[in-house]
């Protein structure tokens, strides 16, 4: 019998896995002086990434194992060229595993204060203040109203 077990807290990544993920984060989202933002390997952002793996922790471990295979050894200890080649191969061959890496990195990167500020966002959750949306002008619908009924009468 296959029994379904609801999600529980994941175990943390091992040191080599953390180093590998941090290197990938830096490759994915580097810092930018022009925009005044850190890279995704920034200490605070990466700590957030590690602490927020949640339901993706096992999937991240799978990706990192795959990268070890592609690098022909421990990815985290491979030469820069070998690491880049392994990541390129992964991105080319496996969109689903790549999406896991992207998700765990950008979910934390794009809520960092410095990044949000650079995007012109307010540093707050949506509730309780909410947002303004222009009411607009419903007279735009006059041509639609003028054309008349579009539903079908039934016998």
């Amino acid at each position: 019998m296959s029994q379904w077990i609801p999600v529980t807290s994941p175990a943390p990544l091992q040191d080599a896995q953390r180093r590998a993920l941090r290197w990938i984060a830096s490759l994915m989202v580097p810092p930018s002086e022009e925009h005044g933002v850190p890279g995704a390997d920034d200490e605070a952002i990466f700590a957030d990434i590690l602490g927020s793996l949640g339901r993706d922790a096992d999937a991240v471990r799978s990706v990192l194992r795959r990268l070890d295979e592609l690098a022909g050894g421990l990815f985290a200890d491979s030469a820069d060229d070998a690491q880049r080649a392994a990541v390129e191969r992964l991105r080319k061959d496996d969109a689903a595993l790549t999406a896991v890496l992207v998700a765990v990195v950008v979910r934390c990167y794009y809520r960092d204060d410095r990044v949000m500020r650079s995007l012109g966002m307010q540093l707050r959750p949506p509730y309780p203040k909410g947002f303004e949306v222009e009411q607009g002008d419903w007279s735009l619908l006059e041509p639609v109203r003028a054309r008349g009924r579009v539903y079908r009468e039934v016998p």
Partner: protein
Amino acid sequence: MSEPVDVLIIGAGASGAAVAWSLADTRMRILCLEQGDWVKSTEYPSNGRDWEERQFGDFSTSPNRRGNAADYPIDDSDSPIKVVNFNGVGGGTILYAGHFPRMHPSDFRVRTLDGVADDWPVDYAMLEPYFALNDRMMGIAALAGDPAYPPKEAVLPPLPLGRTGTTLGRAMNRLGWHWWAADSAMATRDYEGRAKCINLGHCIAGCAQGAKASTDLTYWPHAIRQRVELRTRCRVREVTVNEHGIASGAVYYDAEGVERFQPAEVVILACNGVGTPRILLNSVSGRFPNGLANTSGLVGRNLMFHPYSSIRGYFDEPLDGYRGPHIGTWSQQFYETDHSRGFVRGYTYQFVRGQGPVLTAMTGMASGRIPWGEGHHAAYRQLFDRSAGMVAICEDLPEQHNSVTLHPQLKDAHGIPAPKITYRLSENSQRMLEHSIARGAEILQAAGARDIVTEAPLPNAGWHLMGTARMGTDPGRSVVNPWGRSHDVKNLFIVDGSIFVTSGGVNPTATIQALALYVADSIKQRLANLFD
């Protein structure tokens, strides 16, 4: 054994809440068993800075991803469309977008009009009073005069048009195509204890403001005041029958995991188009060896989703972004059958606002528009707050091979067999999706989009679960009769999307609830001879 009740309702979502409230005025003893719990407004993601992340976690729309204690697994590996739902008081209305159209008059007469599927045993005119009552109970925002419908009341003012609605509305006018303010389950002013919408956005992760009409906020408080009992964290395993073939109650697991039996005079299933056939198929007895109420063999058959396409464009100017309810306007231009299009029936466009910062990155990187490394930030800023588009909700016609069955191995935390989904996209649906993408691209081009991204069918969009215990007059071709009662078991009723005969091309919640109110009224009118 628990005290017997007159009416046992299983499921506290859209339909269970409506039927409970309607039956409450009979003063019968009514109990609802719900496998999930109440959700506190303080628990919703928009309370925190991690609001986008939690849409992929404990408030994911996928039960398999979410994996909360209230959830059960669903094997949907044999379907291009994956089931999404929520288990708790309010059910799917907790995480729905709140888009609230009714089905159209033609939707109930597809055999007569288009020669496909079957006509319903009820029609728009019969349901119209229940649509109207439900609109008032749920507090629906709308703009009166939509030429895509017979006249109907607008209970609350429409959602803001916003920059997105204005941009896309102008494009629709250039093309000469129908569009209108979307009917929406958002309180656009304070209404019946619900606070006015403040445009938190991402309504599909729950509304911290309480502006969205989830049934924990609409029907349930009224029903509970009228002495309906709602027992949470109680998962039903099976409906039992006595020696006369009459439903006698249900076996369930309580919050502590203790197996209990709840006797009842009437049993009403309200567990959605997957949960209801799951319970029926698991309710096996000597009299019903193939599952309860399944003499027709149609329990779990004719599963209908709405296949979705997505057409999104990027613009030079900032639009509404992640602010405001996601869907503000819609189009019914391609709703009714036009054989020159190469398919029968049609679809609705929901025009959608933009995405939050995280989703912008995820979708932009997946489509290759935002690179890794150098160029990431510049490309991201070309997309953030500058996207808008639409999804098309395509009518799905019933096909018996699309089904919910019991998984032979996979079980939930209580050992109850999990549902298994088998689904194939029909040729008609495929052509409809292609048409919707082509026309959607025309709309975005007319609106001035500089770049357009499309996808169909959307994989994680199995919101609408219909058809798996269809209604009809012929017991050989349907599971319940025209007022929701099982043909086989005369005190067993079904009120959720399972009883749909066809799917229409609109979100089904308004029609599900109107049907639930209609079935409740039918029960009340027949109380003296309900089991004849």
